[in-house]
């Protein structure tokens, strides 16, 4: 720990960081473009310049140095005194902000970044109102640099964050600078577009409206967007994300700082892989199948009906004739509520974890890095909560069986009632073994998102909501338990899974994941204390 003085305030800061980072962490609003804590320091934007006390060569007394110093390039050291609150520093900020607008087209009205643009924010806070430029502006062409990303060069501040990202984090080096001086531009080698599994991050780290996500282009003004803190479901890494939504419509997913897990980044599979929530044929209401006829039922009559049907099977065939298959797409709380509910009716009911798919190989970044040097890993397990579901099954005690075992018993007639949770947004779910086993059952309860061979066989069909419509916790590949908020309401009629499972278990009122976790903690120590990533400093970006 070093103690430094910023604007007369003593700041205790972590060792090995630079003054800019220390100032941001202490809440100072220091403007910066090129600095990003996840990238190398280039000190080229010259916005974060500060005054620093240096020993006078004659008297050795600390004096304010006449020249400004980049705070991003100055390591903290005990006793260092700096200031941002000075006319000299502000004059520099004003002048840099004026420079950025010399050639900028000032097309904020049609800019997707407007509202969250650091060119706007910094001009407002540190710039000046009037322009003194009377000479014509440069005009650069817009460039289609990748399947998902567009480059609008005129808005660029040449911070080179995007270039460094592709060099240092993704390791794919598609982006480069071309030309020099005031003619310098960002570019790709034609025919080698920006197209790597992490490319979407360059749009996030672009402090201005220069790099644009085509799927978000002209879609929504950002000031309408609200944000929910969620966890990505794309793989078992468990990246923290933000879900930007408006009027129950999701517009984009972005990374949320989560040091040690995903840092500042997410992959494109997670970022864009949520289209299934917009599928037109989603299962939205509970349905009961009687005599081959499926009919909707009312949410309020559902708990009693399910309870009666299960009790009936238990009475006829005994407490081990009921089983459940819990999907790694479920939240821990949902798995726990379902497990405790079933065990309440059938204390010997075996619980199994649903199938786990594998997609390709682990992808490590930067591409080609040495083991141990990874900055980001996309894992081949395309589910968010295998470990969480397994932990819940284990924590509930009783019999935990594996999937084949359960299916075997169902085929053999030992299991008569099966509760299957799906929610896999993939065409290879469910498989033939499961469908075959389902034929023999007296009672098949299915929770799923999209209709298919399994849902058609279900006696009771319940909607499985997308994770953006639910709240709960996922446990990642390393056993880290992370909560996610509900971002949007499920489609009309549907209830979030947690809500109806809460009611099924006989609880009144609203389902709250945190409340369930407290209940879980008795058998599952630590579940009441999930990992919540620290907030990023307010003025960091």
């Amino acid at each position, binding site marked *: 720990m070093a103690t430094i003085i910023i604007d007369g305030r003593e700041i205790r800061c972590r060792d090995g960081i630079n003054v800019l980072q220390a100032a941001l962490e202490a809440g100072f609003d220091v403007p910066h473009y090129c600095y990003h804590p996840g990238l190398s320091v280039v000190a080229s934007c010259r916005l974060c310049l500060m005054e620093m006390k240096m020993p006078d060569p004659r008297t050795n007394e600390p004096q304010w140095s006449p020249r400004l110093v980049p705070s991003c390039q100055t390591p903290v050291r005990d006793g260092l005194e700096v200031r941002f609150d000075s006319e000299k520093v502000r004059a520099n900020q004003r002048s840099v902000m004026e420079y950025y607008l010399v*050639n900028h087209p000032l097309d904020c009205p049609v800019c997707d970044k407007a509202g969250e643009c650091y060119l706007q924010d910094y001009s407002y806070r540190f710039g000046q109102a009037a322009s003194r430029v009377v000479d014509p502006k440069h005009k*650069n062409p817009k460039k289609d640099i990748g399947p998902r990303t567009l480059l609008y060069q005129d808005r660029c501040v040449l911070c080179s964050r995007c270039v460094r990202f592709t060099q240092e984090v993704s390791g794919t080096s598609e982006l480069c600078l071309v030309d020099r001086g005031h003619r310098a531009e960002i570019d790709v080698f034609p025919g080698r577009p920006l197209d790597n599994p992490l490319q979407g991050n360059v749009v996030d780290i672009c402090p201005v409206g220069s790099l644009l996500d085509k799927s978000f282009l002209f879609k929504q003004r950002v000031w309408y967007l609200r944000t929910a803190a969620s966890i990505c479901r794309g793989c078992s890494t468990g990246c923290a994300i933000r879900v930007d939504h408006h009027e129950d419509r999701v517009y984009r997913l972005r990374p949320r700082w989560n040091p040690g897990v995903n840092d500042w980044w997410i992959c494109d599979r997670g970022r864009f892989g949520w289209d299934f929530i917009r599928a037109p044929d989603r299962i939205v209401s509970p349905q009961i199948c009687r005599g081959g006829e499926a009919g909707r039922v009312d949410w309020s009559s559902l708990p009693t009906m399910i309870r009666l049907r299960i009790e009936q099977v238990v009475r006829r065939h005994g407490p081990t004739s009921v089983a459940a298959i819990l999907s790694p797409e479920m939240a821990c709380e949902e798995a726990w509520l379902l497990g405790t509910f079933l065990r309440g009716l059938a204390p010997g009911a075996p619980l199994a974890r649903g199938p786990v798919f594998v997609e390709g190989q682990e992808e490590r970044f930067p591409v080609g890095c040495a083991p141990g040097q990874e900055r980001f890993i996309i894992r081949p397990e395309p589910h968010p909560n295998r470990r969480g579901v397994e932990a819940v099954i284990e924590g509930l005690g009783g019999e935990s069986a594996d999937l084949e075992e359960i299916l075997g018993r169902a085929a053999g007639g030992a299991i008569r009632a099966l509760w299957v949770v799906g929610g896999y947004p993939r065409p290879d779910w469910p498989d033939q073994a499961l469908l075959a086993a389902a034929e023999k059952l007296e009672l098949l309860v299915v929770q799923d998102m999209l209709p298919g061979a399994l849902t058609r066989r279900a006696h009771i069909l319940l909607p499985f909501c997308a994770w953006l419509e639910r709240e709960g916790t996922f446990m990642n590949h390393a056993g880290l338990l992370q909560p996610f908020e509900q971002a949007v309401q499920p489609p009309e009629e549907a209830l979030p899974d947690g809500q109806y499972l809460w009611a099924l278990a006989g609880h009144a009122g609203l389902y709250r994941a945190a409340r369930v976790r407290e209940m879980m903690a008795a058998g599952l120590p630590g579940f009441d204390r999930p990992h919540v990533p620290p907030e990023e400093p307010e003025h960091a970006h």
Partner: protein
Amino acid sequence: MSGFEPVLLRNVGVEGVRTLKVSESRGGWAAARKALTTMTPDEIVEEVRRSGLRGRGGAGFPTGVKWSFLPKDRKHTVLCVNFDESEPGTFNNRYLAEHDPHLVLEGILIAAYATRADLAYIYLRAEYHELFHILQRALDEAYAAGWFGADILGTGYRLECHIHRGAGAYVCGEETGLIESLEGKRGWPRIKPPYPAVRGAFGRPTVVNNVETLACLPAIIERGAEWFASIGTPGSTGPKLYTVSGPVNRPGCFEAPLGLTVRELIEGDDFAGGMAGGRKVKAVIPGGLSVGILTADELDCRLDFTDVLNYGLLGLGTAGAIVIGDDADMRKVLANTARFYAHESCGQCTHCREGTGWMARIAERIAAGAGRIADLDLIVELCGRMGMMSGMSICGLPDGAAYPIRLIVEKFRGELEEAIGRQPPGYTERYIRDRIPSVYALPVLQAGAAPARERAVPA
């Protein structure tokens, strides 16, 4: 010039001196032999330090001190010879190496030995084609004679020396820009620390020295630090190559002890021999474009490392004087100067990238007869905002841009204002209005890419 015998240019005009044989017959390579066989590297560093030799590339940093920054426990050291001479008005290195390539190579060997470098690169600017061939052939000959390569003079010392050709970028004369360019990258100067002495080319301790600086070394080794220090003025020791260009009778490269006055350089019979065509001096840019400008009243300025500061100049620079006659239009001088820096700014730091580009457009407009008095104030203000000295940038290029541009406006403000006053009423307003809806045609750095194919996004 009485009493002064040229040191660096002593072989100019000697028939065949580009060959090793003639060079050796004229005493070439003797100092290198002395250094390698009778002195330790540290003794050479000390000798150079005592000589007071300061870098001739522009910044004037004491060479011996620069060498002493190298870490003591270093393994591989790189010597970069800065032959990227691109400062307008400057050609002393070219002139020297064209006439006496072996003197330059000998200086390189001595410096490499003193810094215990095992690799030396001569970063030669691309435009010096003829010189490349001269220097490369001299280098080949020196290699063949055992002055480079393994076990030089049987001392066990090994030095590989290569010419690395630049490709047309002024900023590569900045030492870390040069290193980046040497490594095959765009010549963007590096942030410091780490300084090249600690971590330079290829991550190795690196020294970057100017050609003329290195050419001084043989004489220092041969005749001693005291002799060298006795030449010139206090704090500015040794001989210096001065160059003169512009409308003078004898433009060229001249050697004199440091401390020559601008007036002597322009008017002296041993030097440029006065103005050509009956012109008078209006102004002089005395040390390469970047140092700033002197008026006709300031010709008594002594060209050493200290007196130039009394005239508001950035420094001695390269001592390449550009003489401006009374027939020149200072608006065009201003526009030409501003354009140079806009063209050569590397584009890394905001102040320099945007500031030089903006000023070039303003100056271009002033030269086109559409200036405003407010533009002059704006230019001075923009100049005051850029540069390493104020902390606004990574390298010194914007200081070098700010000095001449600001000083031209400040020292010739009367003439510029008068010219602006002569513009037809309303012309500036019309000029600006006619161009505002249009966009600035970007000056091309190089022949552009193939015609663009366009597509709609989103599709």
